[in-house]
């Protein structure tokens, strides 16, 4: 089954080390998301697993068998690309059937599987069209169809939703999650969007400059970030960071507090400030509060809030949700 193990994998392009020695275990049936800012090496890592790039050193084991030197065609993995990478000269039917044709599968069986995939993905009416005649969402579905027909050990997704508009992205996110529920196949998903990571993943791998910063379930990362980088990367809006004397007073070099864990009080509170911008989303209101000597703090208020630009407010952090970090940005536990 689709268990993937990376041990001491490195990748360099010339003299530039993109991936320093890295170990990672992906369990069978897991939905793993690689997340990080652009240029963090997450796509490279995926391409190493796919076999589209050769590892500089280290071992990749897929399904208990060494795969380090196998060409991509023989790793039994399917990949969905950011650009969809459909074959423009083939119909949707032929696009989806292509991996089966390459596997020299019996044509009747090919047709049966293509029809089944098309049904799952609502593509039945488009089978005879060319990719150029489809919308972005439909192309994405064809790319997924091409991946599922061959029943691979694992699916690799390389930022598959970044070319879609916002509404469609949310839909496709749900569809991919549902697909994972029904297929129960290992999926590795690369994104720079932490919302996608939080909503889809069983396990998130946060990467920075080729290093794994933290591995854990979405809520583990949210509740107990290992360092300041993960703390700021996971969660939306971003965690507030407080440094200097205010932080020392609370017993740390740096203090992090999420916008949803800051309360506005009439009296008392730790900090006083003036409301700058108020963002009204209807379900929530985000207030950007300017506090003397700090970067503006973001406060999340559930529902509609009456505070306006210029109002003076007092902020009280929920003490059990304060994150403390040392001078190196590592979490103090």
């Amino acid at each position, binding site marked *: 089954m689709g268990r993937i193990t990376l041990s001491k994998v490195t990748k360099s392009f010339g003299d530039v080390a993109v991936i320093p020695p890295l170990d990672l275990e992906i369990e069978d049936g897991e939905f793993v998301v690689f997340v990080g800012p652009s240029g963090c090496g997450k796509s490279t890592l995926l391409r190493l697993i*796919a*076999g*589209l790039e050769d590892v500089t050193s280290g071992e990749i084991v897929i399904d208990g068998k060494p795969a380090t030197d196998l*060409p*991509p*065609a*023989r790793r039994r*993995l*399917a*990949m969905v*690309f*950011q*650009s969809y*990478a*459909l*074959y*423009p*000269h083939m119909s949707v039917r032929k696009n989806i059937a*292509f*991996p089966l044709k*390459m*596997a020299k599968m019996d044509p009747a069986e090919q047709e049966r599987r293509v029809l089944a995939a098309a049904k799952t993905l609502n593509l039945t009416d488009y089978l005879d069209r060319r990719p150029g005649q489809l919308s972005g969402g439909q192309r994405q579905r064809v790319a997924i169809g*091409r991946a599922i027909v*061959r029943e691979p050990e694992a699916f690799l997704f390389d930022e598959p939703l970044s070319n879609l508009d916002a509404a469609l992205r949310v839909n496709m996110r749900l569809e991919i999650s549902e697909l994972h529920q029904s297929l129960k196949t290992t999926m590795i998903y690369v994104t720079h969007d932490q919302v996608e990571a939080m909503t889809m993943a069983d396990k998130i791998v946060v990467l920075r400059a080729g290093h794994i910063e933290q591995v854990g379930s979405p809520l583990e990362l949210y509740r107990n970030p290992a360092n300041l980088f993960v703390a700021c990367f996971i969660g939306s809006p971003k965690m507030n960071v407080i440094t200097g004397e205010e932080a020392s007073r609370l017993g740390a070099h740096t203090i992090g507090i999420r916008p949803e864990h800051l309360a506005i009080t009439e009296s008392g509170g730790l900090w006083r400030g003036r409301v700058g911008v108020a963002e009204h989303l209807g379900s929530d209101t985000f207030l950007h509060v300017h506090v003397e000597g700090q970067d503006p703090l973001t406060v999340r208020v559930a529902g509609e809030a009456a505070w306006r630009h210029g109002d003076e407010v007092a902020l009280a952090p929920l003490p059990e949700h304060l994150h403390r970090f040392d001078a190196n940005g590592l979490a103090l536990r």
Partner: protein
Amino acid sequence: MARRATGTRKILVTLAAWSVGLAIFFPILWTILTSFKTEAEAIASPPSLIAFRWTLENYVEVNARSDYFLHFMNSVVISLGSTLLGLLIAIPAAWSMAFVPAKRTKDILMWMLSTKMLPPVGVLVPIYLIFRDFGLLDTRIGLIVVLTLINLPIIVWMLFTYFKEIPGEILEAARMDGASLWDEVVHVLTPMAVPGIASTLLLNIILAWNEAFWTLNLTAAKAAPLTAFIASYSSPEGLFYAKLSAASTLAIAPILILGWFSQKQLVRGLTFGAVK
């Protein structure tokens, strides 16, 4: 502000376009007209444009004096042969340069192009001697080889430009889908590059058909293509303009017709990559 094509402007532009076109085409037109004149009228001064006695006698005489069909077949075999051989070598070369570029790929491409800047006459003697020693003088195979080498840089460059336009991710997708290198080239790359390969093929047939330096210097009679056939009518006495024109017209007619039918492909091929 968008430019608006007013009536006068349109007429002026059309006129200008036609004058440039006519100026470029005039020598060919003049050759064709001269081929229908008598030798006396061909050198008459002032020349008459169309008010002369039209005659086919030059064509009759040219056909009687030399074997047009032999030269025509030589031209066909040499231009097709060198183009196909060139494509056979150039497709893998362009594939590797476009999809697996190395540090020096750009330099190799430039170096290949630089060979086109060398005056061919600079290597005439060595090539002539090699041809003599290998018994390739006045053979079709010899000309196929030399014209392949002459046009190879252009073929590789054109295909390289085409292949560059094909997104690498599509080939990677094929690899992930289980395609071998062979499957990748046959099922994905070639079908996507067909328009490019076709333009390259056409342009190179034309270039090889019109090539005169090597075909004149390396052939005598047996393998002489139409270029040598034309040249055989230019004599120092210079009194055979009409027959020379008839021979030229016969030689350029096939390629002119081919060019006419494939102009859409050709224009696309020549401007490809210039605009996205």
